[in-house]
Each structure stands twice: as structure tokens, then as C-alpha cells.
């Protein structure tokens, strides 16, 4: 018999997977086992350095891996069995894809001879995930597994990050092969431009040096690239005000004198006015999402636009761009900062301050009832901004984005692009596991909370000390707001009957309290923070509170509605082209 290499290096597919994950620096895996994963789980006890967190639904595994990835800048890993386990990951993977989050999803698949036979718990998950993953693999033999894992982590974490799926048939997990972990990847079709083109940087520099009313729009690309210092240097050196997208919150200190908050549909009135009056926009690591730009026809009408992004496909996708620079944000800003002049724009900055004074978008009215804005404000006060805030989507998300002052880098984790209800709880769990030294607040709506509520069991079992604030208005609040404003207050199916969330928490052995009065808000928050473990507060808030400012769908950023409530607006017409 021929020698087959070092016998000690022959391993099963399951062992090869674990060894490979360890070599990629993986410490935590969120998952649920099932028939097609049994060989992998059976190998876990041999690898105690891999911590497995048993979630209660695969969607939770994907969101937790996503939250972990965003909080740590490392790939998050989730694991699900074949068929329904794998399809349950879909929402979480789509969410990670939209927000460029490096998640590596591993799924079990039926054994190779059964593929294509409609076997028990078989689903064509590589086919299903095709449009929502950066890349995906069906592993056909154990010998190719290590190379696949290497490539998957490389693709997920480099360039514009994104989720990668590895589908592993059960018999591949059992098959033996020689284990050699490759030290580099060979992917001729995969490349990304890291350094910006110098001629483009020159052009941009010229525009920046000449601009009288420049404005930076900071996106999540800055956080991904960890270019916080470079952004600050650009803003300060040329005295350029900064607004940010939802996912760009945490790229620039919210309390900085040059910070003018979030732009967009629920952005600050003054931020949107800055966009509409700027003569130069420097868009950094953002993709001109419709919630940020509103109607693109009338977006930044007086501005020339510099767009810095690592993904060439984002250039010119949604808005016209004058100077595109494809490259890693950190590298591009470093090169740009060397060339720009020290400048000041006192008139422009004074104008912005004037708008901020005239349009105080963050005012909270006096009220004995609990106002959601006040809750967020108090969480910010209690934590001194030193926390990671995690949200799903909706009114709670917008209030969390508006009323918390994000002074620390990368301190908001939110379901931006896909707008996923139910992201908040598992993602907060993932963030806390990834950065246990941080205080993590999960801001949930009563609707979204119930979409992944079962992860309370995971939190209890693993003692993950997230603080949960339910902004409970008894409605699917953002949809109700639209019904109020655009559908003549016809509240069709937005009213929710809710269970007693405090009792539910208690049933999961998590302490909780209910808050119904304004003066109870702060004490409850302090109580939650003083408690060592997970804690839930059910804030019963003003049911029909709306999120303002608001740019009605289809309008331009110039058409900001501010408090108080306007009259009922026109119902969007069928066939209107806005994305509402």
C-alpha cells in the first residue's frame, strides 16, 4: 500500500472544518444542530477552544453572527443543518449581505448520493442563497474542505465584506482526507482595489480645496475600514461639517462640533438642509440608499460629488458622481489628507449652526407619560454614551439613531439595508459575546421583539448580559405612522395584542420591570445597569408618537416635515415610483 502522508494528519471532514475554523481565529459559533450536522457536532468536544452557542432558531444564529462580526470586525460564524435549518438562515444572511457584514454561514447538506433526490431535509441552499451571498460553496469532498474554508473567510472579510456560505454534505463530514491548511488563496476572479487612483485623489483634493460649502456624508465603509482618525483629520483640517447615514453613525463622534447628525428620511432637518445647500459632497463608504437620499432627482442640487467606495459597482449606481475614487476608505483618506489645505468655512458653518438653532429636530416635549425619545435620551445619559446600541427596524430604530449621542466608534449596530424586524435581540447577543467588556443595549419594538423572542432562552442559558429596552407602543409603530400620515389614520392590522413581557422575561429567568411613568424611566435604566446579568425593561410608551423629522416618500430632502403633526398627507398613488 502506498504511503498516504502523515497518518496523524488524516482527519475527517468534521475535524478538518474545526481545525480550519481555529486557524481562521474563530472563537465562537452560533448554531443549532440537526441530522446533517451530527458528525461536526460530534467533533466539537475535541476542540474546546471553539465555543458553541446554541440558539433557538437559525435566524437568531445568523443575526448573532452578524452582530458579532460588526462589533468585533472579525467574521461571525453561524451553523445550521440542512433543509429548514438552512432556509431559516436566509433572512439573517440577506441582512448581512445588505449591510456588508462578514458572516460565514456553514450548513449541513444531505449526503452526496442523496443530493438532487428530494431527500429528507434537503434544500438547494446554495441556489437559494445565490443572490444574497458574496459567494457560496457546495463542498464535494473532504480533501477540498480546508481550501474552501480558507477562501470563504478571505472573501467574507476582504474588499467589501459580505456573507459567504459553505454547504457541507453529511458524508463529506465523515470522509477522511489529509489535512493541510493552505497559507494563501488563489482566486483569479476576485480582486479589490485597495489604494485609490492618484489622479482621482488629485481631482478630489482640488475640489475640496476650492469648495466654499463642503459636506462629508459618512457611511459604514468608514467603520468597516476603521478610518475614524482619518475622517476626523479630513473634517478638522479642512473644517468640513459631517453628516452620516444610519449605518455611518459611530464613524464620527456625535458630540463633535462639526457633527450635524444623520441625514435622510428621518434625518435631522439641518443635516438635510446642509445636503441640499452644499456645493461639494464628499460621500465616504456609503451607497446612496433611498432612505438617505430621498428623491435622487433633487438630491444635493448644487453640489459636485466625490464618492469614495471600495466597490466599483456602487459608483454611479444611484446618483451621478463627479469624482469617483475606488479604494479602501482608510487608504484613500490618508492620501487625500496629505494633499488638502487647512481651510475654514466660517459662513457655511455659521449657517449650519443657524439651521440647527432654527430647526431643533431633537426637542423632546414635556409629558408625564413615557415618551420613546425620552427613554433613549435617558439610556444615553445613564451610559454616558459608553455603550453599544443594537436595533432592528422601525420607529424604535429611528429614535435610537436620533436621540442617543454616539461618541464612541462603531457603537450603533442596526438592521439598515434590509430593515429586519427581529435583528435586535440576537444581534445584541452576538455583539455582547464579541465584546463582553461593553455595555450592550438592545432597543426593540414590541413587534420586532416578538419575531426572535425565543433567543431569551439562549441569553439565559449562556448568561449573556444584554440590557433589553422594549419601546412598547402596542403597534407596529412605523407602519402605523404611515397609515396615520398617508392612509387617513386607517390602522389596518397594526394594533398588537401583546403578552406581559416582564412575565415572559421572568419565565426565562431574566429579571424585568415595566415602566409606565416618566419619573420611573431613569431609575429602571440604572437598575438594569446595576444588575450583573441580562435585564429587560418594558417601556410602555405613548402609543401614537411619531418619528420626526420626516421626509415623505417620493419627496426630496428639502421637504422635511417637522413637529408638530402636519395634517394628513396625500395617500401615495398607486404606480408612484417612490420606494415606500
Amino acid at each position, binding site marked *: 500500500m502506498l504511503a498516504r502522508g502523515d497518518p496523524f494528519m488524516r482527519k475527517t471532514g468534521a475535524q478538518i472544518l474545526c481545525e480550519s475554523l481555529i486557524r481562521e481565529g474563530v472563537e465562537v459559533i452560533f448554531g443549532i444542530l440537526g441530522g446533517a450536522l451530527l458528525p461536526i457536532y460530534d467533533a466539537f468536544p475535541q476542540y474546546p477552544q471553539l465555543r458553541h452557542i446554541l440558539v433557538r432558531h437559525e435566524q437568531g444564529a445568523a443575526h448573532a453572527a452578524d452582530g458579532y462580526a460588526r462589533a468585533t470586525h472579525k467574521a461571525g460564524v453561524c451553523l445550521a443543518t440542512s433543509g429548514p435549518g438552512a432556509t431559516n438562515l436566509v433572512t439573517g444572511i440577506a441582512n448581512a449581505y445588505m449591510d456588508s457584514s462578514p458572516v460565514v454561514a456553514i450548513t449541513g447538506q444531505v449526503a452526496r448520493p442523496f443530493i438532487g433526490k428530494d431527500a429528507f431535509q434537503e434544500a438547494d441552499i446554495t*441556489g437559494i442563497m445565490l443572490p444574497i451571498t458574496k459567494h457560496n460553496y457546495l463542498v464535494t469532498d473532504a480533501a477540498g474542505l480546508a481550501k474552501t474554508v480558507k477562501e470563504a473567510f478571505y472573501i467574507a472579510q476582504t474588499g467589501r465584506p459580505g456573507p459567504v456560505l459553505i454547504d457541507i454534505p453529511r458524508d463529506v463530514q465523515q470522509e477522511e482526507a489529509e489535512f493541510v491548511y493552505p497559507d494563501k488563496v488563489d482566486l483569479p*476572479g476576485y480582486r479589490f482595489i485597495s489604494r485609490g487612483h492618484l489622479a482621482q485623489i488629485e481631482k478630489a483634493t482640488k475640489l475640496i480645496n476650492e469648495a466654499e460649502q463642503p459636506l462629508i456624508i459618512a457611511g459604514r465603509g468608514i467603520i468597516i475600514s476603521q478610518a475614524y482618525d482619518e475622517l476626523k483629520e479630513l473634517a478638522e483640517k479642512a473644517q468640513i461639517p459631517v453628516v452620516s447615514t444610519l449605518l455611518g453613525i459611530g464613524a464620527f463622534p456625535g458630540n463633535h462640533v462639526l457633527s450635524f447628525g444623520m441625514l435622510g428620511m428621518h434625518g435631522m432637518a439641518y443635516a438635510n438642509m446642509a445636503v441640499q445647500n452644499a456645493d461639494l459632497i464628499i460621500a465616504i463608504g456609503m451607497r446612496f440608499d433611498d432612505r438617505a437620499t430621498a428623491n435622487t432627482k433633487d438630491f444635493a442640487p448644487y453640489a459636485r460629488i466625490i464618492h469614495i467606495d471600495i466597490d466599483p459597482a456602487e459608483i454611479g449606481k444611484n446618483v451621478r458622481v463627479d469624482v469617483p475614487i475606488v479604494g479602501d476608505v482608510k487608504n484613500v483618506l490618508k492620501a487625500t489628507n496629505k494633499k488638502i489645505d487647512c481651510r475654514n468655512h466660517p459662513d457655511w458653518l455659521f449657517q449650519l449652526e443657524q439651521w440647527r438653532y432654527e430647526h431643533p429636530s431633537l426637542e423632546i416635549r414635556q409629558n408625564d407619560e413615557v415618551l420613546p425619545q425620552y427613554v433613549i435620551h435617558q439610556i444615553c445619559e445613564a451610559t454616558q454614551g459608553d455603550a453599544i446600541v443594537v436595533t432592528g427596524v422601525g420607529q424604535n430604530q429611528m429614535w435610537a439613531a436620533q436621540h442617543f449621542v454616539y461618541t464612541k466608534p462603531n457603537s450603533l449596530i442596526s438592521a439598515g439595508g434590509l430593515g429586519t424586524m427581529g435583528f435586535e435581540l440576537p444581534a445584541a447577543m452576538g455583539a455582547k459575546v464579541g465584546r463582553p467588556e461593553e455595555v450592550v443595549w438592545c432597543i426593540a419594538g414590541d413587534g420586532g421583539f416578538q419575531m426572535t423572542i425565543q433567543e431569551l432562552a439562549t441569553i439565559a442559558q449562556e448568561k449573556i448580559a444584554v440590557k433589553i429596552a422594549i419601546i412598547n407602543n402596542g403597534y407596529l409603530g412605523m407602519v402605523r405612522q404611515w397609515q396615520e400620515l398617508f392612509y387617513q389614520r386607517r390602522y389596518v392590522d397594526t394594533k398588537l395584542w401583546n403578552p406581559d413581557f416582564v412575565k415572559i422575561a421572568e419565565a426565562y429567568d431574566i429579571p424585568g420591570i415595566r415602566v409606565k411613568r416618566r419619573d420611573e424611566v431613569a431609575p429602571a435604566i440604572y437598575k438594569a445597569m446595576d444588575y450583573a446579568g441580562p435585564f429587560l425593561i418594558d417601556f410602555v410608551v405613548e402609543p401614537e408618537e411619531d418619528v420626526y423629522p420626516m421626509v415623505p416618500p417620493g419627496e426630496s430632502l428639502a421637504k422635511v416635515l417637522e413637529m408638530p403633526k402636519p395634517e394628513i398627507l396625500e395617500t401615495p398613488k398607486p404606480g408612484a415610483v417612490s420606494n415606500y
Partner: protein
Amino acid sequence: MSNTKHTLIALVEDKPGVLNRVASLFRRRGFNIEGIAVGRSEQPGLSRMTVVVGGDSAEVEQVRKQLDKLINVVRVSDITEEDIVARELALIKVNATASTRSEIIQIVDIFRANIVDVAADSLTVEVTGDEDKINSLFELLRRFGIKEMTRTGRVALTRGGIA
């Protein structure tokens, strides 16, 4: 921007599912593929794909960039504006009787096409050329009655050096 036909050439890895990945991207971005042809390229392990789509230039450029992001796509270019050689092959089975057969053969000769199969009541014609040539031949043969036709879709290369 005008709505014109674009020819995209992609060098792709010869792996299972690659055609699906490419086709899926066109579908997702709302393009109707008018023709797609895939076959081995001069490099082992790589196939060359020719895709013809209609759309305005900005939209096609967007889809080209998205295609370029696919890991299995090594290179992709829109060669519509370039100097190219483009060919398509069609097989046309046309009704032929004793009285029409010679006329059909004459037409086929003019088009430098070939008769590749002869039956008692039909002829099968193989024709290579650009779309216009194939369309013209099809129109001329139509009055005899077309039984079946199949076309490969366009394959194209740029002239001269290497794209």
C-alpha cells in the same frame, strides 16, 4: 441613453453553477438575455461566455460591474463599441419537395450556407454569420415552410490584439 443591444464577453471559471450565477444576476437586475453562448476558452479551466442584452448603457455598465464582482468571473467586458468579429450558427429545417429543392439549394449557395441533412420532404441548412444574415436567410426560406429552427446565440471576439 438609448436602448441598444450590448455584447458582453466574460471569461469565467469552468465550475458547476457558474452559468446560473451569471444568468441570475441578469434576472435580478431586470435584464432579458437575448442570447447566451458558453464554451471552453483557450485557457484550461476557463470558459468564455458571450451574452447579448438590450438596455441603456448605464444600466448595462451597472450589470457589468456586478458581474465582475462574481468570484467565478475572471474578467468581463462590454465590447459593443469595439471592433469585433461576431458570429452565430443556426440550423434550419425547411420543407422541400422535388419542385422546390433546387431553388432552396440555390438560396443556400448564395448565403454560403450548407445543407447538412436531406430527407424526402425536408432539407436541414447550417448557416453561420451575423444575426442579419441568418435573419435574411430565414425570411427567404420561410415561404417554403420552416419545420424547425435552432440558433446558438452570438459568439464574439474583439479584432486584433487581446481585449
